[in-house]
């Protein structure tokens, strides 16, 4: 071998590689940027969740008698509520009180952690690990009635944790004997773990006081007595524990590995086709760019799903081969759990396939494509790994984080902890991200510079150039709607700490009205035409008043019956309506009626609707209403708000005036706020305590609403809007 030749080749390769800035970016830039971002992001999410968890008050039920001092310790305003005998079946309570049944004390050899082994005064370790399953050959012993009842009460969320003293506990403590009590909790439920931790802290502090008191009273040396024995027992059923195992490791593995299945095809179908010189044959065929991109997208998605199925089958077979006969047999997951994971992988692969394709379209050749798509893969795969971290659960802060939300949803569903609202938000945000990515890919595919391997500014590529005098395009409106959805969701969550009033006003003026005006003025859209700023006719205004006063009746009487909200939602709404706040009625109307009407109408019936107008009346109205509905970020508010969105959209479409939308919106909100505040009025209408409006009031309100619509139909449609002149293309 001639070293001079090797050296010449080495020097040439290094020179060429170092001149490729994308390779350098991948090699150095990506690790430098990605890890700090990931760690900061993960810490921030965890911080937010911890704050939210700490704000959640724990309910601990005591199944037995406690000394008064201890009972007081277990009650802390807003943090820990102690309730006697909550969640216990009557018969079991009688048996426990009479001594016919006793609280089982864990055997020393059992795999349960005895907390009295912890150093006195030290922060105890977390809740114990789940009990291991019995061997396969032996039939499992029937569960102890107390354990079974505790499991039921915690699973049904009647209580977060249970403190069960042995029957003689109170007497033992009073007579300076060793008392024993046990905490039941569910390791899979974060609220239950937190409740157990909180109760445990108080019990250990109490034990310390008792120990010191006894040692002082009897003149004993420090550490001579223990005071009480404390144990804890995880009552999570094996299915939930196995769900947690699957939901974390299997979901992560699946996403991490399967995304690769979509990565290479997306490079091949875009950059590869450019490189091979076959793209030209497609471009000169009579095809729409969306047809080409959707065909390619479906291919990438199918391959990504196939890779997901292959990975999942392989994981399942491996688990089934390894687990039987082992101590983990009880954790063997069911086929339905795998099916569920596979189904939820669909939205993940939908988003990532669309993003890979959008980025792939940018690339000049295969190598360029790999350089561009690999960071995107990392951006998706790394957040998926956050599911492995303890304490990160599906909640308001994580429901809108793409890919991570689905990973957490898989875990939440498998352990039976998924709340309908978060499931809705997760699926909603995933669909929004996926649709945005497909739109982006289609948009890029239309750009000749991108297709022919050239480069142009990102703004020009995305079609976001300033076009003075033109109205926004449907794509612009869609992008604004989807981006605002995410910004508003996180923005309003961040503002919550300043109180409800500040959060509402900050969100409305700072996060809705201001960005809307910045968008309109910044992109050079005509303010008056984009926001329909013109005076309405008297008839149009009258229709707005009638609809504003009556629309709520249909929503509260019919739509609420279709999707009845849970009690927790009604409480949340009462909080939103500033129930119990000392605001005067005019201030209440300013905060809840006028401000949202002004700001939300400017965004939805102004900017968004003006962009969607070219799609035709009903597609534009329905899409705007859908945005308005999902913007309220609640499954239970979706239908009523989307319905209101259709009415308000139609009102602005017919009258050509945003003022009509503002008037109707303000009256609708103001009326609801007044009803929630005025108990007498609400009671008279039968809508107190979150009940739907009685049918007779519903019928009356609906009749008035129909009258308003008839009045509105008599208003002639403005000509300019129908034509949609001067639209940005």
């Amino acid at each position, binding site marked *: 071998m001639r070293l001079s030749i090797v050296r010449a080749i080495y020097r040439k390769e290094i020179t060429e590689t170092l001149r490729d800035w994308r390779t350098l970016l991948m090699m150095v830039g990506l690790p430098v940027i990605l890890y700090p971002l990931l760690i900061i992001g993960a810490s921030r999410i965890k911080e937010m969740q911890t704050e939210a968890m700490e704000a959640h008050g724990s309910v601990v039920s005591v199944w037995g008698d406690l000394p008064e001092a201890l009972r007081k310790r277990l009650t802390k305003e807003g943090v820990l509520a102690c309730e006697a005998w909550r969640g216990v079946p009557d018969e079991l309570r009688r048996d426990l009180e009479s001594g016919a049944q006793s609280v089982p004390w864990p055997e020393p050899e059992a795999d349960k952690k005895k907390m009295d082994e912890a150093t006195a005064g030290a922060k105890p370790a977390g809740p114990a690990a789940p009990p291991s399953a019995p061997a396969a050959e032996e039939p499992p012993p029937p569960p102890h009635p107390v354990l079974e009842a505790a499991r039921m009460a915690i699973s049904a969320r009647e209580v977060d944790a249970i403190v069960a003293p042995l029957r003689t506990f109170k007497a033992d403590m009073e007579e300076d004997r060793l008392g024993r009590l046990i905490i039941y909790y569910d390791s899979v439920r974060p609220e239950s773990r937190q409740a157990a931790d909180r109760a445990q802290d108080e019990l250990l502090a109490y034990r310390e006081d008792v120990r010191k008191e006894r040692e002082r009273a009897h003149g004993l040396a420090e550490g001579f007595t223990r005071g009480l024995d404390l144990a804890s027992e995880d009552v999570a059923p094996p299915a939930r524990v196995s769900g947690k195992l699957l939901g974390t490791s299997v979901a992560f593995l699946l996403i991490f590995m399967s995304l690769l299945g979509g990565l290479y095809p997306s490079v091949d179908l875009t950059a590869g086709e450019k490189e*091979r*010189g*076959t793209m*030209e*044959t*497609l*471009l*000169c*065929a*009579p*095809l*729409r760019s969306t047809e080409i991109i959707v065909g390619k997208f479906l291919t990438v998605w199918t391959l990504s799903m196939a890779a997901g199925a292959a990975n999942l089958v392989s994981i399942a077979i491996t688990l089934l081969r390894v687990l039987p006969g082992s101590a983990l047999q009880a954790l063997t997951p069911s086929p339905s759990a795998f099916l569920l994971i596979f189904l939820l992988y669909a939205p993940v692969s939908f988003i990532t396939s669309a993003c890979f394709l959008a980025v792939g379209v940018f690339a000049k050749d295969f190598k360029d494509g790999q350089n561009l798509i690999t960071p995107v893969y990392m951006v998706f795969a790394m957040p998926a790994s956050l599911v492995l971290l303890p304490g990160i659960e599906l909640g308001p802060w994580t429901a809108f984080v793409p890919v991570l939300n689905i990973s957490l949803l898989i875990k939440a569903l498998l352990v039976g902890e998924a709340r309908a609202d978060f499931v809705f938000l997760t699926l909603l945000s995933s669909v929004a991200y996926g649709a945005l990515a497909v739109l982006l890919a289609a948009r890029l595919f239309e750009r*000749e510079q991108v297709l*022919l391997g050239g480069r142009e500014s990102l703004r020009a590529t995305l079609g976001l150039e300033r076009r003075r005098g033109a109205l926004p395009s449907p794509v612009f409106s869609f992008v604004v709607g989807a981006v605002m959805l995410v910004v508003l969701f996180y923005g309003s969550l961040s503002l919550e700490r300043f109180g409800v009033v500040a959060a509402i006003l900050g969100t409305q003026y700072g996060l809705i009205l201001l960005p809307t005006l910045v968008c309109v003025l910044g992109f050079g859209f005509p303010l008056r035409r984009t926001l329909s700023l013109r005076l309405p006719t008297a008839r149009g205004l009258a229709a707005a008043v009638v609809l504003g006063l009556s629309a709520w009746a249909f929503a509260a009487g019919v739509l609420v019956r279709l999707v009845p909200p849970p009690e927790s939602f009604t409480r949340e709404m009462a909080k939103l309506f500033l129930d119990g706040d000392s605001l005067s009625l005019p201030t209440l109307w300013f905060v809840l009626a006028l401000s949202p009407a002004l700001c939300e109408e400017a965004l939805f019936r102004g900017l968004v609707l003006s962009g969607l107008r070219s799609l035709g009346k009903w597609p534009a109205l329905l899409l705007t209403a859908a945005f308005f509905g999902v913007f309220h970020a609640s499954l239970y508010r979706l239908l009523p708000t989307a319905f209101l969105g259709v009415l308000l959209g139609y009102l602005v479409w017919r009258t050509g005036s945003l003022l009509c939308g503002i008037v109707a919106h303000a009256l609708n909100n103001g009326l609801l706020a007044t009803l929630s505040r005025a108990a007498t009025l609400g009671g008279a209408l039968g809508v107190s305590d979150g009940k739907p409006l009685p049918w007779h009031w519903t019928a009356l309100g609906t009749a008035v609403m129909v009258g308003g619509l008839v009045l509105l139909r008599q208003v002639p449609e403005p000509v300019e809007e129908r034509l949609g002149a001067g639209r940005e293309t």
Partner: protein
Amino acid sequence: MELVVDGLVRRFGAVTAVDRVSFTVRPGEVVGLLGPNGAGKTTTLRMIAGILPPSEGVIRIGGLDIRERPLEVKARIGFLSGDTQLYRRLTPRELLFYFGRLYQMEEARLARRVEQLVRELEITPFASQQAGTLSAGQKQRTNIARAFLHEPDLLVLDEPTSALDVVSGRFIVEAIRREKAAGRGILFSTHIMGEAEYLCDRIVLMHQGRAVDAGTLPELLERSRCKNLTDAFLQHIGNPRPE
């Protein structure tokens, strides 16, 4: 159907690649765009094929404007360039069926047309072989079949014989003659003067993005007072051949 190109302009940033080019191609006529590399021939043909939008000017086929009715206009054009490639893992027959479906040809007609082209262009021996294994000439024959498949009114051929040997080039020349006889308009670009002299009814001479002259071969020679097309062309671009 007649192709009308009027005042066609294409700019790439500050560079004007095609500058106010106008010409027509009538049915049954072969028109050649002749010019050196960088003259704007490929950009002109790409605009006509609907791959690039013009910056200014009009392209009409059978009265249809490409800006207003792009899909209908594209359906009437067959485009082939010298560097167009095939899908490596499809066989010629699969590829032809794929494009026939993209052009929304009725299945029975498509099957008949595929078999006809496979026979005429002597594709049969390799019709079931993946394109990645074909020679350059075999690939180009398959590409001719792809461009002619949907029986377009106008054939736009961008240096179709470049990188082909004499035998493979023969298929192109024969195909052009056959399509001309069938009444189709043919617009093709080349920088090979002999090819233009041999095939074209009319020639458009292009230089630096502009059409510097146009007409039949005798007309061009008469106007330039030259004996052959090469000399006429060099005179037009201000670079007469040294005596």
